[in-house]
């Protein structure tokens, strides 16, 4: 006898009840991804409308360039809007204010992570400058346009801060909490990291190396969050890496290039960009090694050196978690 749809639905729901937490987690991730995609689409539509009206004979590539250079701003503020909407709809999710971040939490948990991340990012850049893989081109901001340039830098810092804090809240707090109820620590952290990477791949045009870095960071942050029950330290750490690399040092991240406050470029990247092939550098290292270590045009988030450091952090997180248990 065939089942009527209502009974089938009831049976499905009763069977899915033990996995309700996981379903909620995936629903949250999906909602965030959809919200982000819709917001990007809306911004792109508005951008196209205004640009086409303002400039006659504008090509699609120009619009794409403008949209691409503002991608981080759009994703960052979209993440903030999503978390704000979510907290408005469900005010029981803890903490005060728009996104649940109090000054005390910021000072005791976010700032230490931020400091450690800054030290790592500056040490990373300094190491590559000393080895000659990076070139320092000077202070980018000109006196005549300092207000505009500083405002752009500040907007980018704010967008990155919002994106990191909100995504850490979504994935390392909400998603991971649900996943932990069903899975052991390492698989829960790995699943959260995989979903985080999937969302990032949807938001930005990222390569395998970039995604590997995201996965390693998300895994390390997940393990730390499970041990300490705190996602803010990792948020601070990741925010510092992105802020120092991108708006301060002018290195490309998430497929987006930006001049930054100080201008640092990867040695020999012009040759790759113009398609003139690989060339031998004075120290005997060809560009392929340089690209592998520094990330090349993909920026430091595609770098094997950073991935090695993050792998060490994952292993440390795992060792600490084992000791705590």
């Amino acid at each position, binding site marked *: 006898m065939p089942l009527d749809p209502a009974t089938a639905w009831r049976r499905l729901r009763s069977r899915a009840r033990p996995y309700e937490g996981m379903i909620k987690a995936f629903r949250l991730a999906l909602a965030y991804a959809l919200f982000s995609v819709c917001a990007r689409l809306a911004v792109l539509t508005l951008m196209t409308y205004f640009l086409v009206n303002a400039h006659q004979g504008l090509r699609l590539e120009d619009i794409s360039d403008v949209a691409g250079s503002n991608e981080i701003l759009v994703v960052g503020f979209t993440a903030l809007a999503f978390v704000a909407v979510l907290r408005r709809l469900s005010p029981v999710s803890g903490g005060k204010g728009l996104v649940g971040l109090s000054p005390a939490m910021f000072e005791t948990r976010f700032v230490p992570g931020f400091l450690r991340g800054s030290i790592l990012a500056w040490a990373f850049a300094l190491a590559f400058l000393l080895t000659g893989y990076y070139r320092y081109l000077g202070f980018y901001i000109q006196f005549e346009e300092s207000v505009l340039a500083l405002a752009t830098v500040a907007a980018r810092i704010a967008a990155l801060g919002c994106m990191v804090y909100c995504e850490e809240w979504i994935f390392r707090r909400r998603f991971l909490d649900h996943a932990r109820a069903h899975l052991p620590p390492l698989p829960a952290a790995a699943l959260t990291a995989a979903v985080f990477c999937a969302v990032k791949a949807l938001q930005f045009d990222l390569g395998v190396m970039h995604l590997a870095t995201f996965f390693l960071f998300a895994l390390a942050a997940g393990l730390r969050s499970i041990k300490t029950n705190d996602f803010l330290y990792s948020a601070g750490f990741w925010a510092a890496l992105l802020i120092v690399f991108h708006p301060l040092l002018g290195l490309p991240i998430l497929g987006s290039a930006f001049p930054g406050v100080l201008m640092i470029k990867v040695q020999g990247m012009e040759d790759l960009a113009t398609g*003139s*092939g*690989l*060339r*031998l550098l004075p120290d*005997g*290292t*060809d*560009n*392929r*090694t*340089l*690209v*592998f270590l520094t990330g090349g045009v993909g920026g430091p988030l595609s770098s094997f050196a950073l991935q*090695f450091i993050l*792998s*060490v*952090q*994952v*292993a*440390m997180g*795992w*060792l*600490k978690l084992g*000791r705590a248990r």
Partner: protein
Amino acid sequence: MAHDQVVHTGVVDLVLQTGLVVQMVLLTLVGASVVCWAVILTKYRGLKASARENARFLDVFWKSKNLEEISRRLDEFPKSPVAAVFQSGYKELRKLSQSERTGSGDAEVDNIQRSLLRASTAQVEKMEKNVSWLATTASAAPFVGLFGTVWGIMNSFQNIGAMGSANLAVVAPGIAEALIATATGLGAAIPAVVGYNHFAGSIRRITVEMDCFSQDFLNIIQRSLMASRKKAN
């Protein structure tokens, strides 16, 4: 044109040109190195914190007037192995003082000594956890690397045989590719050796501190028992 001739001399090119076995060896060594660095950093921080808290605890211990006062402040030293040893000895002392006295004073001291020894051994075991990984990597990584090199050179010689010539231009690239495995093995082993020796020294120092403290603590207990016995007589 100079740019048309691509020169592959970098480390990445050498890795890419090696065979599957050598690449697997390299991956294993990089994985071992990652774990080594994680152990080194975790242990470095942990042992540094232990040594710092030990010093602070001993300062509090010698300046305090009674054991109860020290036991109240134990929460301030969560990472101090000496504080953990003290806690164990003090707990045993409390249990003995609460129970009815049937044995001699020496038996009580023996009980406390056993409890101190047990706590001390547990602390050493905790400090030594994962350090053996460093020793394993330090001793095995060069051999694993060497295995990769030998395998690479075997393949390289087979290729030379197939080509039928043995000049430097034919032999050298294969050997260079193979040697990257030994270099990676040494790269994993050297920090592991340095870390292992450093941590072995640190753990030995902390163990000596715990032993000395145990002896001092027992002396204090014995002195106080003798004094109370004198009073009773």
